């Protein structure tokens, strides 16, 4: 008990000290003029941050609060990610089960999953003729692959014993899918969704930089347009914070579906 407590203290201590050190060095470099004029000091970023946080949800048309942009990005990611799950999980199961289909589509899957979101954007625009849908398309098509691949491979790791027990006791067909197969791969599905979401969130920034009018990606581009790196860095921090929160949520869900823990 005491040991884990002191471990936690050490972890927190190291984290804070290292971070402070980095910021300290950075501030010194900036003050002494070592950095490019364009590159802000942490103190400048802090100033920018405090004024932004005050206006977090400001609806002033001339200068929208970053909270509003964040809201629009979250909406898009949510939809795109959902589509990726709805498409990726069933197809993953299909490809995982069928050796023939799995092998037949191997090249397609592995070529497409390497395509950068910036390359998908014009394709998305051409397909959907609407920049909002194009952004969602890009999110979905980039995050579907880890979900699909993990689910497909998870099928091959379902213990043979589960198939045997099911066969012996006559658990077949749809009942088998629902009561045996899906629960057994559910932890992996959730793990894949966690990774998939991470990608969705990363891609939104790229997608919005080119087509958004509202959104955190657009915010970043807009700040860059004004050569305001403080704004860019602050936005990155906001993005990171939100990403951590969601990831934390996923970890909680994962733990809930860990069948082997003592409840």
């Amino acid at each position: 008990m005491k040991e884990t407590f002191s471990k936690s203290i050490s972890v927190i201590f190291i984290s804070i000290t290292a971070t402070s050190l980095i910021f300290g060095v950075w501030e010194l470099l900036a003050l002494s003029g070592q950095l490019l004029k364009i590159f802000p000091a942490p103190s400048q970023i802090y100033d920018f941050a405090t004024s932004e946080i005050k206006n977090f949800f400001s609806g002033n048309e001339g200068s929208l609060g970053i909270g509003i942009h964040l809201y629009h990005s979250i909406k898009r990611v949510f939809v795109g990610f959902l589509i990726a799950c709805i498409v990726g999980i069933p197809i993953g199961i299909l490809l995982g089960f069928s050796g023939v289909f799995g092998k037949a589509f191997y090249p397609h899957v592995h070529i497409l999953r390497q395509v950068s979101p910036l390359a998908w954007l014009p394709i998305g625009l051409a397909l959907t003729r609407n920049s909002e849908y194009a952004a969602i398309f890009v999110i979905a098509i980039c995050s579907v692959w880890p979900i699909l691949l993990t689910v497909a491979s998870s099928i091959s790791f379902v213990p043979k014993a589960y198939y045997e027990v099911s066969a012996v006791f006559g658990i077949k067909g749809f009942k088998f899918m629902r009561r045996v197969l899906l629960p057994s791969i559910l932890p992996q599905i959730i793990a894949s969704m966690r990774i998939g979401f991470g990608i969705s969130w990363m891609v939104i920034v790229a997608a919005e930089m080119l087509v958004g009018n509202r959104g955190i990606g657009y915010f970043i581009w807009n700040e860059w347009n004004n050569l305001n790196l403080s704004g860019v860095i602050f936005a990155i921090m906001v993005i990171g914070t939100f990403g951590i929160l969601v990831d934390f949520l996923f970890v909680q869900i994962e733990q809930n579906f860990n069948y082997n823990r003592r409840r």
Partner: protein
Amino acid sequence: MKAFLSIDGVHKSYGKNQVLGGVYLNVNYGEFVSLIGHSGCGKSTLLRIVAGIEKADKGNILLDGSEITEPGPDRAVVFQDYGLFPWFTVYENVYHAVDSAFGKSLDKTQKKDLVINYLSLVGLEHHINKYPSQISGGMKQRVAIARALAVNPKMLLLDEPFGALDALTRNTLQDELLKIWENHKKTVLMVTHDIDEAIYLSDRIVIMSNGPSAKIFEIVNISIKRPRNRKDLLNHSEYRELKGHLLYTLQERLKKQEAHMTEKVNITGM
């Protein structure tokens, strides 16, 4: 007397490896038969072929007159590693087997009663909402036994059911199994490593020859009267004889790789 289970000339190979080279065995209704032999002799393979989980290359198996090709609840299996689904509670593990086995022929309440009944039989009525990760190995195996019985199988197939458990738990479960078998009159085929267990539980012990191409080497009749008592057994002279014979067979005679071909085995043969 017509055999309940008839294993007729079963051969099985994995690639170039022939594991079973022609097995012939009859099991009668209500009998408790154990399969013993050295590791790798194919006894588990044979059991799995009877279960329908593996398919024989040659030969066939008849149960109660009809040929076996697929697995099913008529030959319920108890596996060595329990075979419980960790996302289901104790209750659900048994229930879903019952549900699939009986389908619409029973209504929900009837199924529920059945499940509770068998779980009580194995003494787990107070643990029905627990998950496998929360109960001991012995309790898990009890669930597996309850499940296997609840689907009202024609035969019980046990694949080293107590191999993963400690000696005390093993003894307890053997006694419970015996009691259940005596009350329910099930035909049982069990694979085991434990000679004492085989003697204690079985009517007959089937000794398999060593692999490759294993066959039945010898069948030993256990004529110790039932009900059997573990304490008394140790003092039983027949027990010592039987154990000696079995040990000798396994340790000495089989080493000589004598393939004792038995076509149709005598029921009382020794």
